[in-house]
Each structure stands twice: as C-alpha cells, then as structure tokens.
C-alpha cells in the first residue's frame, strides 16, 4: 500500500484520469474546498471573538471582585430588619487576615457614581459636574488605569500626606483645559478646594460604571474633603490567580456578616459582583461558538466529501470501459480499487489545502479590517494547527471511506461486461 502511494507511476495514472475531465475535477474540488473554507473561516472568526473578549478583560483582573454594603433583610442579634450597613476602612485588615486567597484589597469611596450628584469642579471660569473617587494606589493592581505620558496615578505619599492632587479624565481635560494647555501641574477647584492635576487617565471601555470624566483623588483627601470618616463605599479586590473567585466571594461575604453582625443567611446584606463569573460566562459563549463552528465546519466538509464520492461514482461509471480494459490487461481488483481511493483522497486533500489557504487569506483580511478599532471585540483570528491537522485527517479518512463506494462499484462489474460497455 505504501509502495503504491509513493510510486511515481501511480500518480501518473491518477493525474492521467484526473486530467481527462478537468471541469468535473474542478467542480468536485470546489465542493470540499468550500467546506474546509467555511470551517476555517468560522473557527478562525470564533477564535478571533474569543481573543477579542480576552483582550477586553485584560483591562481588569479576571479574578477581581467587588463587594458593597446594602440593608439587612433578616433581624439578627437584637437588630431590626432593614438596618443600613456601612463598610469601614478596618474591614480591609479584617478581610486580609481571614481570607488568604485575597491578593489585593482596594477600599473605594465615591460621589456621583451610584445616584447622587457629582461634585462641582471649576477652573478659570469653566466648570462641570463630575464623579469623584477616593482611591488608594493599590487600585491599579485590580483595574488597570492607563495614564497619559507625563502624568501618574495617586501614590502612597499622596495618601500619607493627604495631598490635594487629582487624576482627571480625558473629557474633564477637554472641558476644563484649553486644547494646547498641559493639564499636569494645573489646578482645579473641587467643591471649593484646589487640587493639583497629577495625571490624565485614558478612558477604557468595558470597565463597568467608570467614565472618561471621572476624577480620582487620594482616599485620605476625600475623607477630609467630604468628612466621611472611615467609611468605604465598596471594596475592589483581586484574588490570587489560582483561587476560585466564586468561593472567595462567598468567604468574604460570610466574614463581613460576622463583623457587621448580620444573620449568616442574609443574602441581601452585602452585594457583590465578580468578573470571574462574567468572564466565565463570556468564555462559555465563545466556547459555544467554537463548538458551533466545529459542527458546521465538519458538516460542510462532510457534504463536500460526499460530493466527491458522488462525482467519483459518476466518473467510475463513465470509465467502466477503461477500467475493463485495465483489468483485461492485468489490473487486479485491489489495484483498481486503490487507484480510485487514492484519487478520492488526493482530490479531497488538494481541495482541503486550497480551502485552508483561502480561509486563512479571508481571516487575514478580516483581521486587517478589524485591527484598527477597539470597539469590536475581535483580535487575531487564528485556527490552531491541531484543528487544521485534524480537519485534514478527517478529510483523508472521509475521502477513503467515500472512495470505497465507487471503488467497490468499479470492481463489482465483470471485466467482460465492463468491456462491452460503450
């Protein structure tokens, strides 16, 4: 069998019969080519979507979670139901001591984010109303903040000295500063207090509730400005990479319930949100897309290969006489069969490889067209090499199987009947 496969004469025989009917060969090849093309394009596209989602989530740590306080829904420990809860700065130490899986905890406080007005911000006659966040430098470990060149985010000494510095958004800069003005080092007045601008942050979409006009100031300065004491609005946290975010989230809430004397079964006392779960849902979606493209692709390849089998069946019928002559001259049935099967596999493979090339070409074009914008979650559409090899293997297998039918037909006729055929 292997000897037949690598024999130059075998190929000459096969090329001879393929060249005999070029149009039919081309049409046949298109069937499978289309199948593999669909497969490659689809799975490449779904991989691109996958990569796109991954890129979107790159901005935030995938294992990050957020916890905030709400109202109790179960009376407990002498407290009535509906008691408003307030997170405090010392909850951070409480949590980090009890939950070792927590890598970073950033207490946050804000005005004008969840209802309520933002703060009035003025500068040289220009003014606006913006959301103000009181933050710790550790926040950037959980949610990346892109700061334009020349600026910085809040640092530890800002916290220590309660400095009146702020990081403003792209839009804030546009609205409060002239176009050619360098905002770094400039001053803005937030609720009657002057702050020096130390950085401008880039707006990144998909980050939740934050916008391009947010102003970040040191947590300690916020506390001073708005007299919020040790209150914390919510904790932004990140678990270690190998931790199960959902379990960590449950642990955190349980710990907080103990500290804030809330009934252990009170589901509504603390609210939380974790990106890991959302990320897994999105991953599940793109996994579904992958499976879908796999099924569609394989089904299309199958249809194409059946097409090849069909055409070969016709071809064998047309060549009945020729095959009869060959058998009269001494071709054994297995030689005739082998020739037709190799023909089938060869056609399938050539079609497949052309399809892969065409599919890759289309993917490259799609990539070129989508790589510019960031709004569409689509990056680097690729098909893993093992999928391609798998598809090729599948085609060889199917090509052989489907080739068996015409091959068997070719030898099922007695040579004398084959010779009589006109």
């Amino acid at each position, binding site marked *: 069998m292997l000897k037949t496969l690598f024999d*130059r*004469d075998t190929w000459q025989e096969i090329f001879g019969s393929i060249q005999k009917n070029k149009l039919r060969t081309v049409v046949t090849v298109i069937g499978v080519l289309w199948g593999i093309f669909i497969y490659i394009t689809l799975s490449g596209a779904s991989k691109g979507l996958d990569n796109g989602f991954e890129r979107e989530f790159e901005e935030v740590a995938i294992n990050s979670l957020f916890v905030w306080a709400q109202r109790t829904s179960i009376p407990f420990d002498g407290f009535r139901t509906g008691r408003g809860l307030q997170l405090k700065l010392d909850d951070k130490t409480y949590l980090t001591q009890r939950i070792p899986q927590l890598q970073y905890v950033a207490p946050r406080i804000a005005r004008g984010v969840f209802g309520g007005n933002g703060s009035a911000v003025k500068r040289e006659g220009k003014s606006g109303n913006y959301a103000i966040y009181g933050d710790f430098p550790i926040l950037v470990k959980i949610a990346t903040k892109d700061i334009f060149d020349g600026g910085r985010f809040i640092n530890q000494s800002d916290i220590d000295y309660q400095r009146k510095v702020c990081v403003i958004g792209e839009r804030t800069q546009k609205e409060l500063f002239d176009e050619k003005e360098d905002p770094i080092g400039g001053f803005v007045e937030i609720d009657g207090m002057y702050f020096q601008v130390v950085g401008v942050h880039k707006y990144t979409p998909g980050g939740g509730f934050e916008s391009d006009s947010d102003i970040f100031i040191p947590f300690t300065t916020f506390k001073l400005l708005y007299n919020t004491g040790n209150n914390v609005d919510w904790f932004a946290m990140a678990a270690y990479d190998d931790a199960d975010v959902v379990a960590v989230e449950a642990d955190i809430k349980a710990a907080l319930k103990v500290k804030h004397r809330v009934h252990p079964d009170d589901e509504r006392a603390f609210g939380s949100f974790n990106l890991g779960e959302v990320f897994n849902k999105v991953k599940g979606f793109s996994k579904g897309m992958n499976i879908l493209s796999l099924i569609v692709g394989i089904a299309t390849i199958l249809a194409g290969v059946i097409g090849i089998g069909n055409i070969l069946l016709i071809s064998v019928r047309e060549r009945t006489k*020729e095959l009869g002559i060959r*058998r*009269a*001259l*001494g071709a*054994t*049935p297995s030689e005739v069969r082998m020739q037709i099967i190799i023909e089938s596999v060869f056609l399938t493979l050539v079609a497949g490889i052309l399809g892969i090339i065409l599919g890759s070409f289309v993917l490259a074009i799609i990539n070129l067209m989508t790589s510019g914008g960031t709004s569409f979650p689509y990056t680097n559409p690729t098909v893993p090499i093992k999928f391609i090899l798998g598809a090729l293997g599948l085609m060889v297998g199917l090509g052989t199987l489907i080739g068996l039918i015409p091959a068997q037909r070719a030898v099922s006729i007695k040579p*004398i009947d084959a010779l009589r055929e006109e």
Partner: protein
Amino acid sequence: MGKSTLHVLKGVDFGVESGEMVAIMGSSGSGKSTLLNILGMLDVADSGTYDLDGKVIKDLDETKAAIYRNKFLGFVFQSFNLISYKTALENVMLPLYYQKINRKERQKRALKFLEHVGLGPWATHHPNELSGGQKQRVAIARALVSEPKVLLADEPTGALDTKTSYELMGLLQSINDQGITLLIVTHEEDIANMCKRIVHVRDGVIVEDKKIKQVKASQYVE
C-alpha cells in the same frame, strides 16, 4: 444484465497446441466470443475444466484471473479498446505497469514492440490521431508486450477495410511464425483461411474442427 441466464455454450471440448493459429468461426450468437472470453478468463464457465500451459484454471477469483491474464494472455479486440487519453506508447506500456516493471524498462520494451508493429514514429500520438489499422497494431503491440503464451483476438479485423485487414493478418501471421499461439474469432471466411486451423461453432457446440493450408496474407499485399 438482468437476472435471466442464457446458456450460450453447450459442451465444448477442444485443445490447442502451442504455436497453433486457430480461427474460431461462427455466425453471431453462435457462442464463439463467449468461448474466447472464457479462454481469456474474462468470463467464467458454469462447468467444465480449462488447462492453460499445464495449469488447471479453476476457482478463479478476480485477482488470480487478472494475474493470469497479465502473464499468459494478450487481447486484441474488435473496437481496439485503447485508452484514449494515453499515447500509443503509454497504451503499450500499460500491461507492464501491472507487472510492476519500472518505468524506463517499460518504455524501452513498449517502444521495441511498437517498432515491431511498424509504429515507432507514432509512439507519442494519441489514439484519435491514428487510423483504424494503426490503432489495431497498437493494440497488438500492447497484447504482445507482456510476452504472452497465447494471443486472443476477437474480430480483430471487424472494424477495418479489406486491405488493412490483410495487412493486419500478415502481421498476426508473422507473430505466429515467432511461436506465439493465436486464437482469432472471426466470421469472415478469408480471414479464417489465413489461419492454420478452423473451428466452426454453431449454437454453442463445435460442428467442425479442421486443419487447413494457410493462405499467406502477404500475397494480397503488394
């Protein structure tokens, strides 16, 4: 190819010696072609025995039949049966391909036989560029290239005009003179007379089997 069976041959008993040139004669439907096909292992007899070169040919599966055909037999058909997309040379090379002989050797041998039938210069022509007589000579070269013991010809001159027929018979006679056994099915008296023995088949039985004095085809061809 329906289910109905027709008994074409009804008990045929004859032998051919090595080096003979036998004409099998009969009108159409007499069973002469069937007899040749059974001898050529293209068809199988319902019963009876068949010895070829001292070997009993029986329980023939297609694979074995193919190997015997390739080794011992050469075929010439009325309609030439050349493969249209192959050149004359490639057609002649084909039996050797199935003998797994390498390409160079096949080419060499095939060319020798093409030259032998006088078609050396036509080696690279396709069958549709050849005349009927030339096509049949290519077919003869193809039948001879595997150096068979017996050459079986089914109406070899059936599609040719008289002059070409005689030329072809001359070629077959010269092949026979080299010691190859020939069986020729024909219904033409003059063709049969160019053989050395005539077997008449009618309604599936041999009605006459006689040795004759061979008429040399060369006397008709100037």
